[in-house]
């Protein structure tokens, strides 16, 4: 099923392990070199910059080719038929297969672009076809088709993003089917979603490290992240309330109806992120730990949406101070590694470091904070209500 040369994929994994061992200074450079010589990899996978460039250029080529094709057949009125996008989609897919098989492209940007374009075109064809067949938009059929399509790409090209899309489409399919199947479908939806997501999570957790899933390790990590996130959202108070049948119709009213078993969902909203954090620390599992960190923020936003304990600026400042305090304490505590935890960055010279991403993010987000900037040069602005001193 997998399109790539299995031996090369295996060799790639061996090389990665050797690289890790080299970084840990367990093996010497010569040994690493010897391992690489013995395990050749023939893939063409350039660095991230070239990959981005190749991606953009492939998109240009494909879109102008499609445009040229459209120009040629513009008189015959076939452009808006589903067959046209299906045909072009299949052509792109064939190009993709050829590029991967003949030129050994492996995550090179060219294959990424072809994959997304062909998938998108085939999906478009299916949607046009479905819209022709019936009047109500068949969400469940489309999401099911999308799920199959994305999973096909994910399995064949071991692509992480396709895995995420396939999984989300699968969950959406279950959602739509269950909703229409029973009159009480929506009422039981949170619990069904919780069961489904935890099932998927444990399944993916168990399959990591198995021989059959050796080349899909990164895809399985994505599955874990997505299922953990949806598992939380299934019981999040805000999500449940927006989707609950009681608030249907009065969705936009000021006072949404309270949710039955509200206590349970509130407990879920607040506690699950911390349970994730605890599990992540206990099992030293990066994925669940980081998901938990993100979800703490989600819990805070949900809580603030319902209860306004203090004005926003006070909350921001206090949370900011607390975060800085926590960081200070963690760093102090981990000055020398304890219980297998360290603060030191173990991966030196990674991609983020090379591009100095951190400094760019800082300048991107903080550069707007000087209120005097725009007002001084370009005049005019009515900054800050009553205090205006007449100079503006």
């Amino acid at each position, binding site marked *: 099923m997998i399109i790539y040369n299995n031996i090369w994929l295996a060799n790639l994994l061996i090389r990665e392990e050797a690289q890790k061992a080299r970084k840990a200074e367990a093996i010497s450079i010569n040994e690493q070199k010897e391992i690489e010589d013995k395990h050749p990899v023939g893939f063409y996978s350039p660095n991230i910059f070239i990959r981005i460039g190749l991606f953009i250029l492939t998109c240009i080529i494909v879109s102008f080719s499609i445009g040229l094709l459209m120009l040629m057949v513009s008189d015959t009125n076939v452009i808006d038929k589903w067959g046209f996008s299906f045909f072009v989609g299949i052509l792109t897919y064939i190009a993709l297969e050829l590029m991967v098989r003949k030129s050994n492209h492996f995550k090179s940007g060219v294959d990424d672009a072809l994959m997304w374009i062909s998938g998108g075109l085939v999906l478009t064809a299916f949607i046009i076809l479905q819209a022709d067949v019936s009047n109500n938009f068949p969400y469940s059929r489309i999401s099911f088709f999308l799920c199959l399509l994305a999973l096909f790409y994910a399995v064949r090209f071991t692509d992480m993003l396709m895995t995420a899309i396939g999984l989300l489409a699968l969950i959406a399919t279950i959602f739509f089917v269950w909703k229409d199947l029973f009159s009480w479908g929506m009422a039981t939806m949170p619990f069904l979603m919780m069961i489904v997501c935890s099932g998927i999570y444990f399944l993916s957790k168990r399959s990591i490290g198995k021989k059959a899933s050796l080349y899909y390790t990164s895809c399985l990590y994505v599955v874990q992240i997505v299922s953990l996130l949806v598992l939380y959202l299934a019981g999040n108070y805000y999500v449940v309330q927006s989707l609950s049948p009681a608030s249907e119709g009065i969705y936009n009213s000021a006072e949404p109806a309270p949710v039955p078993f509200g206590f349970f969902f509130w407990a879920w909203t607040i506690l699950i992120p911390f349970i994730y954090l605890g599990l992540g620390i206990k099992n030293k599992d990066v994925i669940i730990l980081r998901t938990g960190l993100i979800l703490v923020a989600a819990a805070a936003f949900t809580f603030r949406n319902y209860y306004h304990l203090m004005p926003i600026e006070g909350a921001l400042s206090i949370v900011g101070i607390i975060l800085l305090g926590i960081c200070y304490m963690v760093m102090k505590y981990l000055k020398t590694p304890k219980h297998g935890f360290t603060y030191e960055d173990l991966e030196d010279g990674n991609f983020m470091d090379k591009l100095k991403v951190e400094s760019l993010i800082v300048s991107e987000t903080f550069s707007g904070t000087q209120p005097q*900037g725009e007002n001084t040069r370009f005049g005019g602005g009515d900054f800050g209500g009553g205090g205006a001193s007449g100079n503006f």
Partner: protein
Amino acid sequence: MNIELFKKLFEEGSISEESFEKVKNASRTTLFSLHWEVKTLLYLGVMLLSSGLGILIYKNIDTIGHQVILLIIAAISGGCFFYCLKNKKPFSKELIKSPNSFFDYILLLGCLSFLSFVGYLQFQYTVFGTNYGMATFIPMVALFYIAYEFDHLGILAMGITNLAIWMGVSVTPKQLLLNADFNSQTVIYTYLFLGLLLLLAAYLSVYFNFKKHFRFTYQHFGVHLSFISLLAGYFFYYDSAFSFLFMVALFALAFYIYKDAMKHQSFYFLLLVVIYTYIAISTLVVRGLFAMKDDASITLSFMYFIASAIGIIFLLINLNKKIKAV
């Protein structure tokens, strides 16, 4: 690390017994790093605190409490700088590794609250009078000084942004794309001047061996600014022959950046040069094709894009090989 794998490698004879022992030891004592988690939290903390303080000022600017707020902000800023001065390493022309990330972010917080403080002073008391240039010039100089003194790339980038504000333009790539008002001559020339100035700063950093690692930040802003403003200049003077001067300048600049990227083995700048040059050449070609006023010009330009993009792909692949060989 996968012990089974290394056992096999050891039996194959790829690694020595000593190395195999080391691998076994290393895999037993793997540490779990919280580095990026803590860093993200630090970033969030600084961001939340500084925006919280910003809103606090904004809301209370006309109440009696504003002197208290001013004092609090001054205290925070002063406290941060005091902490940083106490923990800082002596100045050096080379890269200084900061003591830890907490130091970096506290310094950032200090700078942000300093900026708020200056802004507030100017707004409430108009300390700098109506001389607004001064009100932006002083924070800018302070930022550059702090960036060099404490060796902080984030603050350097903020300083560059402030330099742009002082010159009357905004510089981060996002804002460049969002409020792209290139319809005035002055804006284009200011951008261009700033871009070239930054490129010069990048060059001089290396030439004088003074904070060599700042080169990337200068170059990053400089390259984007210069190319975008040259392209904007070309479109601004589209109808006059003057526009081709911008194109010539663009190609000259592209050649310089290309040589520079090859010298420093930088894939990022190589990609930028290729993309910006490709845009420039394509606009020229399309202009030429449409000047023919022929029905075939659309088809021809489509074909041009297909063929040229394939060509650029091969060019990129070859350049990639070449830069690795340097």
